């Protein structure tokens, strides 16, 4: 049985490297928001209230390109569809928490917390405390980095400093050790194929992520079932 202090310590240690990547991403968001002529307050409040890297960066890019309010909201809805998948996948993990706490934890659902939460769940079963600490650390990193990015504004170029590389590289570092089983590898290879084809035939389509996320697991299931019957 793992104790609470031990869980908190483990969560902080495991989440720290990812928090750095999130901070790099948050810094980019802050800088870009300044370049879109957003005030310091608007920039920070969007991070405090929305807490979604992909939504925020996409919206800032759309503000810069002069998109309309309805267009931006529809984009946000599409980008958020993957949260439904994340939530459904995390539900068992968060189920032991009280409803009030679960609502709070739901606010912390993001690409990164979802990945760490699932890795933990596979190893030790449901652990809402672990998820809460991870999400709390990510939230702090995101808000503080957004503030710093907005504050230093025009001084740095995120691309020149490689801040944009932190996110994909972090996910590669998380993905590779998970590829342990034939069915998981098959899912990953299928996702790679589907995502690449979709990007080729429908570039910049917000549904690409969702379609890949919905279809690829069927291949993993098929391989797993076949392995069971051999």
């Amino acid at each position: 049985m793992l104790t609470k202090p031990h869980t908190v310590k483990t969560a902080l240690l495991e989440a720290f490297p990812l928090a750095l990547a999130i901070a790099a991403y948050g810094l980019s968001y802050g800088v870009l928001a300044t370049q879109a002529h957003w005030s310091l307050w608007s920039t920070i409040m969007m991070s405090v209230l929305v807490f979604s890297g992909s939504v925020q960066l996409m919206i800032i890019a759309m503000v810069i390109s002069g998109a309309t309010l309805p267009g931006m909201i529809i984009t946000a809805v599409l980008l958020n569809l993957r949260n439904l998948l994340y939530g459904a996948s995390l539900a068992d993990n968060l189920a032991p928490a009280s409803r009030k706490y679960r609502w709070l934890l739901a606010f912390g659902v993001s690409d990164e917390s979802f990945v760490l939460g699932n890795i933990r769940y596979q190893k030790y079963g449901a652990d809402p405390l672990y998820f809460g600490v991870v999400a709390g650390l990510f939230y702090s990193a995101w808000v503080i980095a957004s503030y710093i990015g907005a504050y230093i504004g025009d001084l740095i170029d995120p691309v020149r400093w490689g801040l944009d590389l932190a996110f994909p590289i972090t996910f590669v570092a998380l993905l590779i050790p998970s590829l342990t089983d034939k069915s998981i590898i098959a899912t990953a290879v299928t996702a790679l194929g589907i995502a690449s084809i979709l990007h080729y035939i429908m570039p910049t389509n917000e549904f690409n992520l969702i379609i890949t996320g919905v279809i690829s697991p069927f291949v993993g299931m098929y391989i797993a079932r076949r392995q069971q019957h051999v």
Partner: protein
Amino acid sequence: MSEQWILILVLCIVTFLSRLIGVEMMAGRILHPTLRLYFNYVPIAMMVALIVDQIVITDQGSTSISLPIVGGAVAATLMIKVTRSFLPTVIIGVLVGLGIRYLLSS
């Protein structure tokens, strides 16, 4: 109230609802074994999709591949396989990506 603040509030509501619906509607329910097996594979699929999303760049209708990200990802793959340690892997991956970007721009 300015349009900016309306946008922030709407984004806040839309994003939170999408998070809450998944967690709340499924929480505490006994999932059918097939559905449980399916959700086991969703994280891997989404991670790969997110990585591909970053690697493929679309600019004014034309699609290309980000060589700095691909190079950084290959370096990160080798590093994590050899060292099994996360933070140095990310740092080396980003540095290799930056190196490739520098070489391409010079």
